[in-house]
């Protein structure tokens, strides 16, 4: 008979010891190897701390002297966000229907999923660069970028909601011989509407955030102002812009959270 254990030990994270130690060793080797082979110039990193002091010294106090430029940039960001949300959500609805397995035939389902995967995979900044090259600098490229960005999120979430609907109502209307579009309007839309409204508000908020970023590569809005300030070493103006961006994001997050709480 084995003696009863007199000390308690915490059960290990992975019960099989061979697997556990393999995972540990692989992880350690990987991180050691990555750390050793990264092309890092330590001298420059050390110098960087001094430079950080200079930059922050130059950034304080933040300068709100050119607040006209700041407000114009923000209004442009807001316009970009509104137009992109409107366009993106309108386009998302048909794409979501395409990508919902229970209402679309198989080939159309695959096409819909493909559009969503491509729209989701590319970071908005990459999409922005391509649109800037194709249609020129300015807010129009930003609107197109954020339309793609909106489709990637709204169409995906909406398709998932459509797949979860109660199909009884659709069947009832089909049995009554109702045409396809009427089925969509009276049996599907009422079921997905709350989610659609919530998603639209969330996306408006999200687009406002993203519009600050796509501007850095020339797609209009406050990001363009920020990139310019940074490029001219106007760190005090850059800090002022950053502070306002953070404030606006917090504000819009609060507003959109309130609205979504009431809708849902």
């Amino acid at each position, binding site marked *: 008979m084995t003696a009863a254990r007199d000390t308690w030990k*915490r059960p290990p994270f992975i019960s099989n010891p061979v697997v556990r130690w393999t995972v540990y060793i692989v992880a350690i080797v990987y*991180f050691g190897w*990555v*750390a050793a082979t*990264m*092309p*890092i*110039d330590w001298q*420059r*990193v050390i110098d*960087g*701390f001094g*430079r*950080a002091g200079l*930059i922050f010294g130059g950034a304080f106090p933040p300068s709100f002297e050119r607040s006209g430029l700041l407000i114009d940039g923000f*209004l*442009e960001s*807001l*316009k*970009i966000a*509104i*137009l992109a949300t*409107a366009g993106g959500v309108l386009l998302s609805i048909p794409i979501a229907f395409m990508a919902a397995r229970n209402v679309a035939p198989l080939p159309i389902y695959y096409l819909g999923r493909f559009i969503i*995967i*491509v729209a*989701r*995979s*590319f*970071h908005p*900044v*990459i999409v922005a*660069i*391509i649109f800037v*090259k*194709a*249609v*020129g600098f*300015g*807010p*129009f490229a930003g*609107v*197109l970028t954020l339309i793609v960005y909106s489709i990637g999120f709204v169409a995906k979430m909406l398709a998932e909601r459509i797949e979860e609907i109660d199909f009884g109502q659709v069947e009832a209307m089909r049995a009554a011989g109702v045409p396809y579009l009427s089925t969509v309007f009276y049996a599907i839309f*009422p079921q997905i509407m709350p989610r659609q409204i919530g998603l639209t508000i969330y996306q408006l908020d999200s687009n406002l*955030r993203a519009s*600050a*970023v796509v501007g*850095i*590569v020339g797609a*209009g809005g406050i990001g363009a102002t*920020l*990139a310019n300030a*940074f490029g001219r070493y106007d760190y005090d103006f850059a800090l002022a812009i*950053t502070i306002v*961006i*953070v404030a606006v*994001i*917090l504000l819009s997050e609060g507003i959109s959270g309130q609205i979504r709480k009431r809708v849902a």
Partner: protein
Amino acid sequence: MSTISEQFGRDEWTRFTPKQRMQRYGIFALTALAIAWALSSIEVIWAWVWDAPSQMGDLFGRMYPPDATNLGSILRILWETVNIATFATVLAVFMSLPVAYLAAQNTTPNRVTLWLGRLILVTSRSVNTIIWALLFVAIFGPGVVAGIVAIMFRSIGFIGKLLGEAIEEIDKRPVEALEATGASRFKVIAYAIVPQVMPTFWAVSILRWDINLRESTVLGLVGAGGIGIILQGAIDTFNWPEAATVLLAILALVIVGEIVSAFLRRRIL
């Protein structure tokens, strides 16, 4: 059989009551106004807008067929991108642990530390990775260091916030039991708090790794390392076939990342 008016108090069936309809019209009008305001005042050269479809077609025409002659160096830098994302995620996870501890109402030592924790989280999350990267490229110069630090700074807020919420939701009883036995602060954390937030910890770390993979593809565009550098180079030299290869490589990377993270989530949770 009862008539419609007996059932609903109305003669005809309509989808909305008059009040609902007024509210809907109000919201429609507001939306239309916002769009009209944006459309009429945005500084856009409309000729370019009408021209856009043909310009886009032209661009994709130039990208085809993708040119894979540089595939070797593209894959090498793609691997570097993965390393940046992974390394930065791991570092951020470690750094967000104390922040989450401070930012959770039931574990933070006092009010001041609570607000310190919250301040770190809000600052980190409100500034986009690219903006962090812009700052750190100015500090550390171009290269992977700026990229890793930028992704770290952004991830701490995300991981810390979700982890802090998980800590706030834990069952207090194990904590009280351990405290009653006179366990040290460290032991309470290790044996009563950590096991409860472990699932969230892994789920959040994997999710953030997946997001960071995407984010790290654009760091190079502001000079902070990774595949973005090659993309920028190809675009600047109008080498569209190579740009197409890079885009396809990024697409593959993101899809593989999503599959791996879905697999890990299923195995661990």
